[in-house]
């Protein structure tokens, strides 16, 4: 742990933000090419969300989390053995247009001037704005898994509701840990399998993923977890906190009691850094999210800023690592440092690994009630703004997310729109009948994460570099 200001890195060839598969692989490759590399990571150790706390994992926890999780351990070991500087508990809260990074570590803020930046900041879970989703006791499937990975805690009285691969993975991990969920309430609409069929060829090429998915579902079934399919009209029960979930499945209404309701509608790229820098983004109809526009090597529209991993679009951990290496190879080449690794081989790997994606995207596209919540549902939970209020602002003439934000404060709270951003944009697009690319997204303002006023007062800028 580097504590004192003098010994902190002040400049580097490549600053990598995030130490998941993309960030770790990029750091190892760039360090091999003799670039000076600094990884800024919010975690206690390398791994990111998918391999969270992989270095600390005990054998019983490994048995629960499975071999794919443990694959992250090898990458983390390679990173530790490399010359890349890994800074744990370091939260990037601003990046200037001259690629000067402001970050916070254990209550003190520092600056790092980078020639190149790779954003490997992964995903956020898609918001699930169903009636009652802001009540205490409602959580996300991803949050359940974080508890499992970092603390070995299994939620014992939870309903899992939604759709997507992570839902089945976490349910099977809970079952393996001896506390399966009370029920799975699956929201994949009827007819989705038929919609996904045109992509079956890719799915067959990616059969490893399909087999894994099917085996997860089998494990959950084997644990005798009740599974409700095609669920609609979801509503969290309870006056002050969640006491259960009501929904309709196969034409019948069900009310299940539980202490926790964990929602999930897949993950989307964490847009904060690429939006902060004003990178171009395009709407991806298949993934139902904005993705930063990049070339094949991950270079964004912002000079010398790259994206790798799920932050550029959801591709999974294997592709993320390949993308991280591709970005580092490109940066090394630009800095005149040749490497033996061949980009073409990595690109072929990406094509092969991504073959299953169109099938999964068509199958698990979010259900309509999650995209267009009813008027009385709170969309921005920080400022408690309903979908109806947003529609009313649009009717008054507020044309886009930023005007709606200025008018209603939706997206101005501590989460900075990380949770509600896509929902707000989609509501405006639907109301105005305009495509998502024309609607756009919140302007993201620093600090990306809350910062103590006293920390700003005692901030250590890098002399004149910051001016």
């Amino acid at each position, binding site marked *: 742990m580097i504590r004192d200001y003098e010994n902190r890195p002040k400049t580097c060839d490549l600053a990598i933000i995030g130490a998941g598969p993309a960030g770790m692989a990029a750091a190892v490759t760039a360090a091999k090419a003799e670039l000076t590399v600094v990884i800024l990571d919010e975690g206690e150790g390398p791994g990111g969300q998918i391999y969270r706390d992989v270095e600390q994992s005990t054998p019983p926890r490994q048995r629960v989390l499975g071999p794919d999780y443990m694959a992250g351990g090898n990458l983390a070991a390679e990173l530790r053995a490399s010359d890349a500087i890994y800074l744990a508990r370091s939260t990037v809260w601003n990046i200037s247009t001259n690629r000067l990074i*402001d970050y916070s570590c254990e209550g003190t803020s520092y600056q790092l001037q980078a020639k190149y930046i790779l954003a490997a900041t992964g995903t956020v879970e898609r918001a699930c704005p169903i009636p009652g989703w802001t009540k205490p006791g409602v959580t996300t499937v991803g949050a359940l898994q974080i508890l499992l990975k970092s603390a070995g805690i299994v939620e014992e009285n939870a309903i899992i509701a939604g759709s997507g691969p992570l839902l089945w993975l976490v349910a099977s991990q809970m079952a393996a840990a001896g506390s399966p969920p009370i029920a799975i309430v699956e929201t994949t609409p009827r007819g989705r399998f038929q919609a996904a069929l045109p992509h079956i060829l890719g799915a067959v090429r990616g059969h490893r993923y399909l087999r894994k998915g099917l085996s997860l579902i089998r494990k959950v079934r084997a644990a005798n977890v009740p599974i409700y399919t095609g669920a609609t009209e979801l509503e969290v029960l309870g006056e002050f906190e969640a006491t259960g979930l009501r929904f309709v499945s196969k034409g019948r209404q069900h009310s299940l009691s539980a202490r926790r309701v964990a929602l999930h509608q897949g993950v989307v790229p964490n847009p904060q850094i690429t939006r902060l820098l004003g990178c171009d983004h395009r709407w991806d109809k298949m993934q139902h999210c904005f993705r930063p526009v990049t070339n094949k090597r991950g270079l964004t529209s912002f000079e010398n800023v790259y994206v790798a991993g799920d932050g550029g679009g959801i591709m999974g951990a294997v592709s993320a690592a390949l993308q991280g290496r591709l970005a580092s190879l490109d940066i090394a080449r630009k800095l005149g440092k040749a490497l033996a690794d061949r980009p073409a081989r990595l690109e072929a790997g990406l094509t092969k690994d991504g073959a299953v994606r169109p099938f999964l995207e068509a199958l698990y596209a979010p259900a309509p009630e999650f995209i267009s919540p009813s008027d009385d549902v709170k969309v921005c939970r920080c400022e408690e703004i309903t979908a109806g209020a947003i529609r009313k602002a649009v009717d008054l003439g507020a*044309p886009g997310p930023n005007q709606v934000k*200025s008018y209603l404060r939706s997206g101005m709270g501590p989460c*900075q729109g990380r949770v509600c951003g896509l929902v707000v944009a989609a509501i405006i697009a639907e109301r105005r009948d305009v495509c998502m690319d024309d609607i756009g997204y919140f302007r993201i303002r620093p600090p990306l994460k809350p910062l*103590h*006023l006293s920390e*700003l007062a005692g*901030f250590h800028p890098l002399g004149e570099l*910051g*001016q």
Partner: protein
Amino acid sequence: MIASSKISADLIIIGGGIHGCCAAMFAAQRGMDVVVIEKDTVGRHASGVNAGGVRRLGRDFVEVPISQHSMDLWYKLSDLVDDDCGFQIAPQIRLAETTEEMERLKQRVTQLQGMGFDHEIVMDQAELRRRLPAVSDHVVGGIGSLRDGFAQPYQTTFAISRRAKRDGARIFENEAVRQVAKVSQLWEVSTDQNTYSAPNVLNCAGAWAGRIAESLGETAPVEAVAPMMLVTSRLPHFCDAVIGVAGRPLSFKQMPNGTVVVGGGRLGRADPSKNLSEMIFPELRLTAATAMDIFPIMAKATIVRSWSGVEGRMPDRIPVIGPSGTHKGLYHAFGFSLHGFQMGPGVGDIMAELIANGSTQWPISAFSIERFKDNPAERR
């Protein structure tokens, strides 16, 4: 290709900020046919993202009469535009940290009283403690204007633009003005999409107004600047007033929801050609320290958001208001130099009167654009 047709009006206003929208509303209410051309969207820049202070306190003496007029309109604004604009009457208070600062503030209040204005009052240390129990012990006193206030800037500008539309003004957004030219007694304003024609043009283009004025032969040294603001997470209620400090740049306000907005004029990076501004956080270290010095409770505060916006500033820190020095039918209201939000309704009314009647009862000669003609860097 079809040539776009000319859109005729009595008055073309360039800029859909609070000044352009207020002028449009009052001119339309006087029966003029008004067009507003806005290169982005209404309230996109300084008018929609400022700190929201509705402040008479501490103004340059030449601004006081029109600021008073504006304040009278602010009290009626919610009825005028059918929207509360988030406006609340609240004291604005300027604090003195030393006895020398306190003396200067007292002198100011005495001078104002000599001019016939009694809205600013002196507060001794005991009075200040009573109003601001959370203020630091070292603060010796201050002056206040008790019936000033604050509003939600975008909500306000947006509501005024809707009122102006209901009064008949036409507002064209996402159209950048390319050229302003006199064609046989009429102004022709061309954008990338349309051509507009009218006997009168009002330049309310803020940080971008200098370019338009100079294209018409005026000297208009507008500097684009980017004031920065911080917003904290919610704190327990501790401050009812909007606070400034005599000796250090700080503006400070706790919102009804408990968040605190901290600003005070320290500047980020402005790039008007790209419509962008950028925060420079090291510049805000002293702002953060000052906020904690004045209100020790702020040591617990967490910054959740910051913003900056592009604003036009004149070398002498007072705006340009009034008719052109070079052309008949051309008027200006821009360069409000980081304190134009409160002036919006008043100046809009004055410009509407000036354009409709050819004269105004309000003293605006100090704001003439002619003051820069031979002295572009004039400072006060």
